[in-house]
């Protein structure tokens, strides 16, 4: 009888304390919007995510603000992409005096060398392959568990369900690509961000600029691309949400290639846009590829 009473009291205390626990969310930082979306999906209600580079922003040339440094100082865990995407991040972490646990989401991803013949740096856009996105999610899950062991069960369950969605997405991507004739799987884009996508799904992406959005194109590069489009009969050129589109329009006019719709590579769109989450982004991109390349 007495044992039962104690058990009941314990249960009551648990019930009382659990909402209190839920209110005290784990503060996490993600450096850019796509990573933020992953952390949101794995963390669920237990985690409050702050994204430093917001929708449609360019992480390559981002300048951090004091508000970012403050958010970083309060954070318990920080997620970065790695592979050289956030050059400014290490300095920001140091200057904010943050004691947060720092997790590199791309660790154990096999890095691609950049497609540019001069560059020997790793290509940072690893999330463009869904298989890599699954590695990101696993790393994020482990990072959240390390920062907040009490939430282990929740994070594992969330990650498992999100990984399931990513598997479905992977199948969707492969199915869509399979419908495009093999000799038409060639595309020109403004910034060389689709290397991992191309390697994973058998598409060829050619860019008029190097890997970073900062470099300026030379007449030689542009002439090479125009010749290539003419010679290999590349059917479509695409604009991205962050690059100067005038150059691509010029190339399209000169070659007669079709200008495809808007692709999202480095940043998600805002809530109203076509790519507010990672899964929406990938769906948007394969839809645009299919439309431009099929006929």
């Amino acid at each position, binding site marked *: 009888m007495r044992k039962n009473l104690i058990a009941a009291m314990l249960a009551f205390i648990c019930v009382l304390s659990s909402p209190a626990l839920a209110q005290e969310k784990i503060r996490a930082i993600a450096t850019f919007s796509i990573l933020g979306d992953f952390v949101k999906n794995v963390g669920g209600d237990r985690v409050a995510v702050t994204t430093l580079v917001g929708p449609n922003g360019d992480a390559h040339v981002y300048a951090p603000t004091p508000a970012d440094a403050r958010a970083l100082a309060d954070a318990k865990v920080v997620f970065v992409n790695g592979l050289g995407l956030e050059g400014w991040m290490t300095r920001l972490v140091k200057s904010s005096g943050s004691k947060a646990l720092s997790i590199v989401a791309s660790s154990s991803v096999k890095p691609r060398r950049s497609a540019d013949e001069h560059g020997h740096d790793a290509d940072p856009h690893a999330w463009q392959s869904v298989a890599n996105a699954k590695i990101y999610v696993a790393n994020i899950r482990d990072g959240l568990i390390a920062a907040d062991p009490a939430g282990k069960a929740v994070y594992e369950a969330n990650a498992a369900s999100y990984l399931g969605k990513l598997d479905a997405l992977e199948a969707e991507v492969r199915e869509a690509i399979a419908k495009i004739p093999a000799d038409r799987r060639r595309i020109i884009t403004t910034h060389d961000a689709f290397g991992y996508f191309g390697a994973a799904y058998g598409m060829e992406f050619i860019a008029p600029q190097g890997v970073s959005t900062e470099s300026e194109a030379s007449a030689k590069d*542009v002439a090479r691309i125009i010749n290539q489009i003419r010679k290999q009969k590349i059917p479509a050129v695409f604009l991205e949400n962050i690059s*100067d589109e005038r150059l691509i329009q010029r190339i399209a006019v*000169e070659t007669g290639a079709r200008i495809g719709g808007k692709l999202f590579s480095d940043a998600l769109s805002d809530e109203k846009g076509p790519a507010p989450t990672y899964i929406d982004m990938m769906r948007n991109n394969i839809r645009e590829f299919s439309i431009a390349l099929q006929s």
Partner: protein
Amino acid sequence: MLYETLIAPFVEFEFMRRALVGVCALAVGAGPIGVFLMLRRMSLVGDAMAHAILPGAAIGFLVSGLSLVAMSTGGMIAGFVIALLAGLVARTTELKEDASLAVFFLISLAIGVTIVSLRGTNIDLLHFLFGSVLALDDHTLLLMAASAVLTLFVLALIYRPLVIECVDPGYLRSVSRLGTPVHLIFLALVVINLVSGFQALGTLLAVGIMMVPAAIGRFWARDITPMIAIAVAGGMISGYAGLVLSYQTGIPSGPAVILFAGILYALSLAFGTAGGLLRKLFPGRHLEA
């Protein structure tokens, strides 16, 4: 072989022909402006202007998003306001032109950064607004040609007072009241040339083709009219040679053009007949009657 290197790129590719027309139009308008700026010791105004137009571009962005027309118009208006304010302050107070321009462009830059951050975005507006010589469309070419024509026409109208203003402003003030209006009209031309150059070609090319050929001309001529002719020719030659250089070697086009202009400048510095280094070291015999 020579044809392959020097002419074939322009025959084969339309973007190369457009680039060539673009730099030539810029050289025609910006050459004389650069010479006058140099003579008035305002050679650095171009760089200041590249920052001063930010608030206008930002307001254009707030009103109609990422639209080149809105942002260029806003930038042009901001440039006019800054140039006019700086010019008026320099005319009416003790502060010199360069100092007042520095103050106004810094304030303007601060306002611009503030406006951009209000929108909560970190898109680099100027990076978006500033174009590339390899990507000139019909509108941009027309804009550049129109600004070159306007520049030549207005310069022809105000040429005499402007030249006197450059060499002896005190004299002009004593014989005419045209000094201040001519100065302000000239500043307006500067802004038109720079802003149309920025959005077509980017800052480096727009400012570079304005100032470097002017300095080249200074080493070959003592009179203003031949100096202008040499500056325009120097700008065109640099533009053509720079494009060929960029096509053959893969150096980005803007830097290639300015590097070539830099080589011409170094040659002029050494061999120029009007104050070049060799002439100074080994002066010719005085001509005697």
